[in-house]
């Protein structure tokens, strides 16, 4: 659409700008402020330079939490994206099955995050949970509160349960936009199922897949509430992701300096990775067209 150049449009954007500035810029400035200062209490602050950043970047606790978070995001993407594509491909395209699938699959997306945690906490308990009871019944020594592997498995299955539908819905939106004629042409050419997927469906899903990967990366990298409710970061610190560690440092121990430095590093990692991803995919898209 042809847009007219009009700087008065700024007045329409102004309320949004002011509100987001109040709820994003001012708090971020506070964080920046804390990250370069030290305090001995009494609201007296003095300049600490990059001390906190050095401390955080060299602490093994931060490295471990970062590694755990990266591993978690990688596992989540490796499971949810292929699974989401598979389910989207097998979903019905017309008839009564479409709304039924859409509604039922959307359900987990609309549940409050801590309730998701509660659901899986109850579901996985070995005394009253169906899953825990079943696994114990099968002779598997399952206990997400004691065994780090079980804790990880529970959280990953929970996230797959919670968010795969998002990938499914996005891919499905891409798939239904493919005209029937494409499939007919492929049939006439005698294309195999795999080539239909590789040369028709996957390119058409390209855009939605990018969004799906970006969203799943961001949200899994920021995950806090669900694992916190299920494991509280334990057993030990086996499931202490960056966000859990950050809240512990900031609110639990009230270490303002390290917490602020950590916040900035954390935010920067997300922004940087998202930006790299964004530029790479948009450039790849432009090269092709």
């Amino acid at each position, binding site marked *: 659409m042809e847009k007219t150049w009009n*700087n008065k449009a700024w007045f329409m*954007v102004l309320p949004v700008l002011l509100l987001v500035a109040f709820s994003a810029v001012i708090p971020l400035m506070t964080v920046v402020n804390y990250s370069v200062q030290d305090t001995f209490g009494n609201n007296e602050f003095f300049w600490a330079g990059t001390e906190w950043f050095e401390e955080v970047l060299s602490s093994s606790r931060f490295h471990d939490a970062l590694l755990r978070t990266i591993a978690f995001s990688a596992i989540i993407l490796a499971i949810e994206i292929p699974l989401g594509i598979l389910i989207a491909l097998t979903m019905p395209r017309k008839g009564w099955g479409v709304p039924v699938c859409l509604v039922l699959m959307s359900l987990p997306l609309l549940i409050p995050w801590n309730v998701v945690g509660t*659901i899986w906490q109850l579901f996985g308990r070995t005394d*009253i949970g169906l899953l825990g009871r079943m696994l114990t019944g099968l002779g598997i020594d399952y206990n997400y509160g004691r065994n780090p592997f079980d804790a990880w498995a529970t959280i990953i299955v929970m996230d797959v349960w919670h968010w795969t*539908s998002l990938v499914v819905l996005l891919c499905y939106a891409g798939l239904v936009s493919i005209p029937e004629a494409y499939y007919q042409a492929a049939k006439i050419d005698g294309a195999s199922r795999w080539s239909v997927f590789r040369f028709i469906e996957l390119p058409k899903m390209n855009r939605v897949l990018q969004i799906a990967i970006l969203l799943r990366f961001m949200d899994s990298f920021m995950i806090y509430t669900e694992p916190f409710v299920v494991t509280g970061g334990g057993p030990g610190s086996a499931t202490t992701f960056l966000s859990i560690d950050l809240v512990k440092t900031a609110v639990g121990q009230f270490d303002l300096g390290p917490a602020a430095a950590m*916040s900035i590093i954390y*935010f920067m990692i997300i922004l940087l990775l998202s930006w790299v991803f964004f530029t790479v995919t948009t450039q790849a898209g432009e090269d092709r067209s």
Partner: protein
Amino acid sequence: MTATTYSGTANNLSRAGIRVATAGSGRRRLKRLVPVAYILFLLLPVYWLVSLSLKSNQEILSSFTLWPQNPTLTNFRVIFNDPAWYETYINSMTYVFLNMVISVTIALPAAYAFSRYRFLGDKHLFFWLLTNRMAPPAVFVLPFFQLYSAFGLIDTHIAVAIAHCLFNVPLAVWILEGFMSGVPKEIDETAYIDGYSFPRFFVKIFMPMIASGIGVAAFFCFMFSWVELLIARTLTVTAAKPIAAAMTRTSSATGLDYGVLAAAGVLTIIPGALVIWFVRNYIAKGFALGRV
């Protein structure tokens, strides 16, 4: 009656016949199996929650049963009779509703500006809004607490409503912009020629045209504010405490009242489940910030 049954059976038979005749019918059945298995996987934990909420605590703890033997609404009665419980439900509803109204109201003119005009720094601004979606809530916990303390807003509904604007306003702007760009610009121009002033045109002509977009944006503001807990819990103590926070407290304090906990969980699922039907075709669009 019998005739229809017979024709129905015949129909099924002929359909089955066709299915047998087509090659790869097994594969097609397998294809149906994947979504069905996935939906079962999705529903099983939810079923378990509902089932627990209908059991008495004795039944939950003493015997392991797949479905409630003596279904009871006691757990729900506990919540509806205890102000400490149902007020948190009202609190959540209040700030979510406030947030929805604020976000959509201020996002409407901004989205119009982005969809119709070019202005200094428009693209940068548009993407800067998106970066707020990437901000980890954990980063904002402490500064939010201090900021809202400084304004004396801790434990008020409006504090949570404004704090949630952090991610809901960008969301509303992006979704509305997508819908507005679908309305041809000629509509605006015709209205101006007909002598409509801008506010009258916007309210009388433009807003009805993007009514579904406003509905979708409002729904997603509602949803994201409803599911968020970390910020909401940090900014509230008792007077504006969300139901989700009340749940974490109960589970740790008494440790045994699983029935009530499950009932509270079921109650938080209901608002979303009620409106899914109306937005089912827009869910992908909303989660992707209107970019699908």
